[in-house]
């Protein structure tokens, strides 16, 4: 009678020639690159939203954040087929037997298993939560942004440990031949070369079918893009006026913008704002969820408004929305953004009056700034001491 343990497959039970270091190292290389890209652009996005005191996020290039956040989501999306193939190629290793006789070897094996478990779980976690977030789907109760950030460090840390452990094997596999052509005949089914090519095709299809949400010329082929790019005045919206529950306040005829600097305060109606010098700027709205679109915004320069209350040029500004709740109801506009000639309190978008969903009566639009910080339905700007 066979013991139940014998039902567990052994690494040798897997007979496909396609599994193994030849595929794992080549796919792993690109998977590593995509994770590194996602990690670095993720750090940039984190800094753009939560500027540490020692750093000043630049206002140029205007589309820098649009590009880095686009790369973030695109590289994460590309990593899905790569990760699936990578895991498939090394799956037999899951059934490697432990050597219980040798304590030192057993400890090493357990440590490596733990690091792989961390790596695989963190990698899957990052891709699943990132993709769901890009489609604004939150089937969990942990805080997305801070958890995605914390697990990113675990994923990249475990990845670097994994590379350190496997480096000799990786070098050997990458410099060795892909297919052992001599042993191959057409009787054996698909070749490693063909399988690798399939993986690149799957990765390419993953990118092309989604990237249109941020790359305008891909819009037609991006059948799985989270946004078609349409919306009021030709620009999509992230949070609607209904969702923010601002319609009564935003349509109130008594609306007036408050600009404050200590005891000094001016109040400006929409007509007052329209009577000031208007500036037009072509600026992207680039969302943390990865979609972006460029628009022609027209309105009053924020620095002109701040000059009305004699704000210092090195003072940060707190921008408050009419919306009553939400994490981004109030944001801090750093001094370099507040004084930038392209930072506007916009009244128009693409030649139309700002729609309610885009932030009527007026909204903040600054160069190189994440969409969540481009405060809509602005109620008050207060110069911080």
């Amino acid at each position: 009678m066979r013991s139940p343990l014998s039902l567990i497959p052994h690494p040798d039970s897997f007979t496909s020639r396609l599994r193994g270091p030849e595929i794992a190292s080549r796919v792993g290389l690109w998977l590593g690159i995509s994770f590194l890209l996602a990690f670095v652009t993720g750090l940039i996005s984190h800094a753009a939203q939560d500027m540490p005191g020692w750093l000043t996020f630049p206002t140029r290039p205007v589309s820098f954040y649009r590009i880095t956040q686009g790369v973030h989501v695109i590289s994460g999306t590309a990593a899905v087929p790569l990760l699936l193939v990578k895991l498939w190629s090394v799956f037999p290793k899951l059934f490697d037997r432990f050597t219980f006789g040798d304590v030192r070897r057993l400890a090493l094996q357990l440590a490596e298993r733990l690091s792989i478990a961390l790596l695989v779980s963190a990698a899957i976690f990052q891709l699943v939560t990132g993709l769901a977030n890009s489609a604004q789907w939150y089937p969990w109760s942990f805080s997305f942004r801070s958890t995605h950030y914390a697990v990113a460090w675990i994923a990249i840390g475990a990845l670097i440990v994994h590379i350190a452990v496997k480096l000799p094997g990786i070098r050997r596999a990458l410099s060795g031949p892909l297919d052992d052509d001599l042993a191959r005949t057409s009787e054996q089914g698909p070749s490693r070369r063909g399988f690798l090519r399939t993986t690149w095709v799957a990765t390419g299809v993953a990118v092309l079918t989604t990237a249109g949400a941020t790359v305008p010329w891909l819009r037609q082929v991006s059948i799985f893009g989270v946004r078609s790019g349409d919306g009021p005045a030709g620009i999509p919206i992230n949070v609607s006026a209904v969702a923010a529950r601002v319609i009564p306040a935003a349509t109130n005829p008594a609306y007036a913008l408050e600009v404050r600097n200590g005891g000094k305060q001016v109040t400006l109606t929409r007509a007052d704002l329209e009577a000031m010098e208007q500036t037009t700027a072509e600026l992207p709205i680039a969302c943390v969820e990865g979609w972006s679109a460029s628009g022609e915004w027209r309105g009053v320069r924020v620095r002109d408004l701040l000059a009305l209350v004699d704000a210092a040029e090195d003072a940060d500004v707190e921008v408050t929305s009419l919306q009553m709740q939400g994490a981004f109801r109030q944001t801090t506009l750093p001094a370099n953004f507040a004084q930038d000639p392209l930072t506007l309190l916009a009244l128009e978008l693409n030649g139309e009056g700002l729609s309610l969903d885009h932030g009527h009566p007026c909204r903040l639009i600054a160069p190189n700034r994440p969409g969540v910080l481009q405060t809509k339905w602005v109620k008050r700007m207060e110069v911080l001491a």
Partner: protein
Amino acid sequence: MGEADGGSGVKVLRGLLFMLGLAGLAWGGKQLLGLGFDNLTITGVWLAAGVLAHDAVLAPLVLVMALIAVRVVPVWLRGPLAAGLVVLGSVTLLAVPVLGRFGARADNPTLLDRDYVGGWLVLAAITLAGVAVASLISWHRHRSVLR
């Protein structure tokens, strides 16, 4: 590790990478702990669920499909069929959030505003056409080898 592994330079590099990776892990762990116990528990459940979904569901499923394919699918069709399934399968998996439109909101028509199922059918049709063409080529090659 001998010369084949690249000598002492590689050893130093590996050591540095190892420490760097551990530092990343430690920093991530610290961040995660800082988010509170409830957050940590749910994150742990999701981390474990992801591995289980792959190792205990998806991987065995693919394995069973491959075992069946080896028995019933002729050799010349295996490569093209596997390629088609890898492309369509992986892209379908990553499109689950948009295909299900789970995040759609009645108040925001600009979000998830495509015909995703229609798009999927087009992709499936293109993949199928690609598999058909590749199979034809593979079948021809197979016949000429046998002859």
